């Protein structure tokens, strides 16, 4: 396993300062021991695992809350700029924003028990917004509602957002009103961001976008910049991922190849070797499983 004292120290520091002290060395060792050398030798596989681990972007609880704040301030900035372009001063624009906020409604994408809804709670709390700004039911949307802001924690492939756009709820809103529709996510993969932009009229608000270089095995991957190492790493992850979650999800949902997670959950766009717990695989960052009906969409 990890033999280098420096690396052990690095992992220890990551655990203490980034991963909220979630782990003991035993957990980490157990996860590394998943890589038994079924593709190349165990040492090489564990080196790859180490690289994945140290490039895994984890948003701890405080950061998730701050992303909610950040998203809101980007949203605020966008609206204020529109007022400034109309000729108002910054101060005036801010006052106008506060006024118009009363005509905005916030809600979530996805089902009530999913993470979008969970995030709404943080969002409301951290930004000090009253409950009345949040939709309880879709028919809460009144005539004077100017904008609808739909929240989610993560935009992966964009399938959820596009599906939601095409749903009758949204199509009715579009047909019967001039409501501006915003899609507010804490973070997004660029590929999904572009898909939603191309296939919907959602205005997307997102404080953190993961470009193509953050897809672990992309051509511009900064995690594995060398082709040869990238290929062997991909083989390893694909092999184990395939065993764990099956073909389409071997490298994350629909090949997303993401390497990130949140305090409250790990999106399935992330490589399954990080989160899967099937067939005796020890997950380092387990995913809180959702129980779906057949055919339901994941992220």
């Amino acid at each position, binding site marked *: 396993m990890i033999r280098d004292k420096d690396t052990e120290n*690095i992992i220890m520091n990551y655990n203490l300062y980034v991963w909220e002290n979630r782990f003991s060395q035993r957990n980490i060792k157990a996860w590394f021991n998943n890589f038994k050398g079924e593709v190349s030798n165990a040492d090489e596989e564990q080196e790859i695992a180490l690289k994945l681990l140290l490039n895994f972007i984890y948003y701890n609880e405080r950061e998730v809350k701050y992303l909610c704040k950040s998203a809101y301030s980007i949203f605020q900035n966008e609206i204020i700029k529109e007022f400034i372009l109309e000729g108002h001063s910054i101060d005036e624009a801010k006052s106008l924003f506060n006024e118009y906020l009363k005509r905005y409604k916030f809600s979530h994408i996805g089902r009530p028990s999913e993470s979008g809804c969970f995030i709404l709670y943080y969002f409301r709390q951290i930004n000090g917004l009253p409950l009345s700004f949040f939709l309880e039911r879709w028919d809460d949307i009144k005539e004077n509602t100017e904008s609808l802001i739909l929240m989610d924690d993560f935009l992966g492939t964009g399938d959820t957002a596009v599906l939601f756009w095409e749903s009758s709820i949204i199509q009715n809103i579009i047909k019967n009103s001039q409501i501006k529709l915003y899609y507010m996510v804490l973070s997004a993969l660029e590929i999904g961001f572009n898909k939603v932009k191309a296939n919907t009229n959602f205005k997307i608000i997102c404080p953190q976008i993961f470009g193509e270089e953050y897809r672990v095995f992309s051509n511009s991957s900064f995690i594995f910049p060398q082709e040869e190492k990238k290929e062997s790493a991909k083989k390893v992850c694909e092999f184990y991922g395939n065993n764990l979650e099956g073909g389409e999800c071997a490298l994350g949902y629909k090949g997303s190849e993401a390497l990130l997670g949140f305090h409250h959950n790990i999106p399935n766009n992330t490589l399954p070797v990080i989160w899967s717990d099937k067939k005796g695989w020890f997950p380092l960052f387990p995913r809180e499983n959702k129980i779906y009906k057949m055919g339901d969409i994941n992220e």
Partner: protein
Amino acid sequence: MIKVEGFVEKGKVLGEYVNSTVDLFITGISLEERCPKGWQMLKEKNIKIKNKVIFYFKEVIKGFNQKSIENPQKYFDKLFDNSPRDCKLDVSLYDEITGLMELEKYLNDSFSELKDKKVVIDFSIMIKPYIFILLKYLLYVRNMEKIYLLYTEPASYHKLRLKKVLKNNNQEDSEYFTKGTVKIGEVPTYSGEQELTKKSALIVLLGFEGERAVQVLNAVSPDLTIPVNGFPAYRPEFKDRSILSNEELLKDSEIMKELMYAPANDPFETKNTLEEIYLKYYENYNISVSPLGTKPMAIGSCLFALEHSSVRIIYPYPLEYNIKSSKGFGEIWNYTVSILR
């Protein structure tokens, strides 16, 4: 008493000075690739610039000489399309007061009144004490009411190898931001106003040089320390790199528990974070801020200190700056700062 407002624009400039004229453009020279990007963007948008002031830092010229570029002066003249009416200030990177005095001479000669002029400053490559003193001068002495600031992100800082960041080792020549320390001092004109009966609080905007944060902490010995991490950062992984670089500071659990955040590219949100801290503590604490994070965050702390004259800015003055500490260039940000008196 002033109040500072502002907002952020990514990549473009707002209508109010597109199709208009910029009266004064201020920037400096550097070996960094992002150095001319702000100027180039204004040119591309056909914004007419009447006057330019460029700080020709001696140390950068010397650095260029070492790279055997024949005539660095000419090189930068060409880069910035300098004409005879433009002003080149031959000053040292390490002496912001003299830099300011030279600027003042030029401004006195060239402008009877600066207050209502459109002034744009590209601060991408300027060191923080320079930025601070420049803004103080323009806003307080020259009574300006609006300033436009441009900032070009680097594509990356030098290759921060993980082990070196975390081991805090001596870095190779190209892989450092600063070297050594001259002193830990108050930025001139930002000494604040201490109430002698209050305790002291130190807000540290975290950067990648954790040892400098510890130096500041030891120099100030505050009763309360609040670290602020740049988040969201320019790149997602930077948020962790800065935390881990500051391990020595954050290992104190009393300090770690106070950790707060401000976006690395947004001075106004940074200012808001500082305001939040200020409102919580100002009654019982004298507040000091040490801007060791990104330059936009430093601007945020500057604007905050301009609004609250009791706040002081502490800076660890290095023996040497790396005049090429970044690679490439990323997004260009436009910050419009308005002052209400």
